[in-house]
């Protein structure tokens, strides 16, 4: 079993699609050994450049990702794509349909696409997304594109796990750019107005520029607003040019390293929180006075706030 496992990691590092896919399944489902696999892979990460695509549903994110990946591929880069769609909170099922719009690249040798369900996580990406990014990174992908669910409001999380965030909008969403709300406006490094052949595209682009002028970015990067027609491949070259410019901006100002260090900081905090929460969960059941304490709180003889301090003391003593 052990050697089979090592074999899988070795094959994934050599770029075997089957091995990469199996590792992703393992990590996504937290199957036994997943964390061990991540430990093995970690030294091989850090080489890929990470790009996030977010914005409301129906703005053409999948088609845009398809065209960006195709262009990168034609420039001889290898590309990994993570496409996230919502899971039902009731059944846990999900319909993952991003591949329908990614027709140009489904048969390209250098492109690996994985569809994910959100599986109960908020913020438009799934819990496992950053680990799956690492698997693709370790397997040697030059660029990794992450497409979020696109609920339009709670998408800030994506900006924390990628290097360049792209916010996609379209004309005709009503109420000017109501759909680009506070928060989303701040996370965009590049703004795209897709379906720019529709009426009102210039207006949306201007509105975004005005909003950006009101909130100048603190780090000398002036966020560009680009008009695209993804279905006709228009504006895609310009978008890629801006991605490369932003990448250079981050590298030259040492911002990329800082950004990635902040990411690592958040990541270890999160992992630590998970471990501590697991620990508390396991230990609290073992406290034999717990039933009594709950009874006393219910009778209003004690309050939950003081009892938590007491429980913490008991846990620390053990």
């Amino acid at each position: 079993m052990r050697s089979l496992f090592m074999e899988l990691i070795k094959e994934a590092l050599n770029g075997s699609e089957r091995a990469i896919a199996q590792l992703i399944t393992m990590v996504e489902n937290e199957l036994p050994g997943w964390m061990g696999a991540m430990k093995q892979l970690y030294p091989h990460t850090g080489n890929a450049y990470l790009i996030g695509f977010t914005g409301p549903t129906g703005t053409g994110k999948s088609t845009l990702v398809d065209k960006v990946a195709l262009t990168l591929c034609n420039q001889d880069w290898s590309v990994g794509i993570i496409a996230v769609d919502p899971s039902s909170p009731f059944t846990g099922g999900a319909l993952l349909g991003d591949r329908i719009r990614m027709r140009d690249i489904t048969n390209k040798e250098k492109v690996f696409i994985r569809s994910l369900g959100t599986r109960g996580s908020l913020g438009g990406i799934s819990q496992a997304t950053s680990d799956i990014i690492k698997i693709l990174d370790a397997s040697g992908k030059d660029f990794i594109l992450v497409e979020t669910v696109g609920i339009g409001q709670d998408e800030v999380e994506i900006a924390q796990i990628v290097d360049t965030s792209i916010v996609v909008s379209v004309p005709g969403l009503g109420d000017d750019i109501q759909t680009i709300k506070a928060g989303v406006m701040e996370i965009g490094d590049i703004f795209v107005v897709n379906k720019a052949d529709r009426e009102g595209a210039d207006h949306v682009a201007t509105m975004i520029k005005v909003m950006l002028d009101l909130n100048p970015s603190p780090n000398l990067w002036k966020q560009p607003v680009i008009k695209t027609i993804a279905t006709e491949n228009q504006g895609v070259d310009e978008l890629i040019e801006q991605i490369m410019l932003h990448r250079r901006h981050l590298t030259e100002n040492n911002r990329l390293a800082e950004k990635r260090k902040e990411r690592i900081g958040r990541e270890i905090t999160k992992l630590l929180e998970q471990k501590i929460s697991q620990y508390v969960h396991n230990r609290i059941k073992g406290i034999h006075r717990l039933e009594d304490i709950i009874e006393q709180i219910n009778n209003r003889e004690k309050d939950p706030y003081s009892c938590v301090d007491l429980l913490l003391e008991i846990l620390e003593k053990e």
Partner: protein
Amino acid sequence: MAGEKKIRAMVAKPGLDGHDRGAKVIARALRDAGMEVIYTGLRQTPEQIVNAAIQEDIDVLLLSIHSGAHNHLFPAIVDGLKEKGMEKVLVMGGGVIPQEDIPNLKNAGISEIFGPGTSTETIITYIKEHLPS
């Protein structure tokens, strides 16, 4: 949640016909049964379907076809999966498939063929009963 594997199914339309109402109904039903369902869209080549199956690491593949090319396309997909080490995938077929073709398709590695009028429950039960554990 940890250590619990979700069933991943892929609904694919090989061949040149554009009838995907049935495929979409099945995709929704499987989703409502708690599975993660990848839908590939219309007019996929066997090679594209096999590639997607590998990358998505699926457990079940449901092929729907109305063009009459099933005798050629279904076995090509099963062979492609075997060649890439995906022989454990449960492959099912549906659409318009004449009775007399079914034995040969089953010999070629299609687990079962479901014709028009099959209830979605029948399909879901079949998947749950036949998935390799």
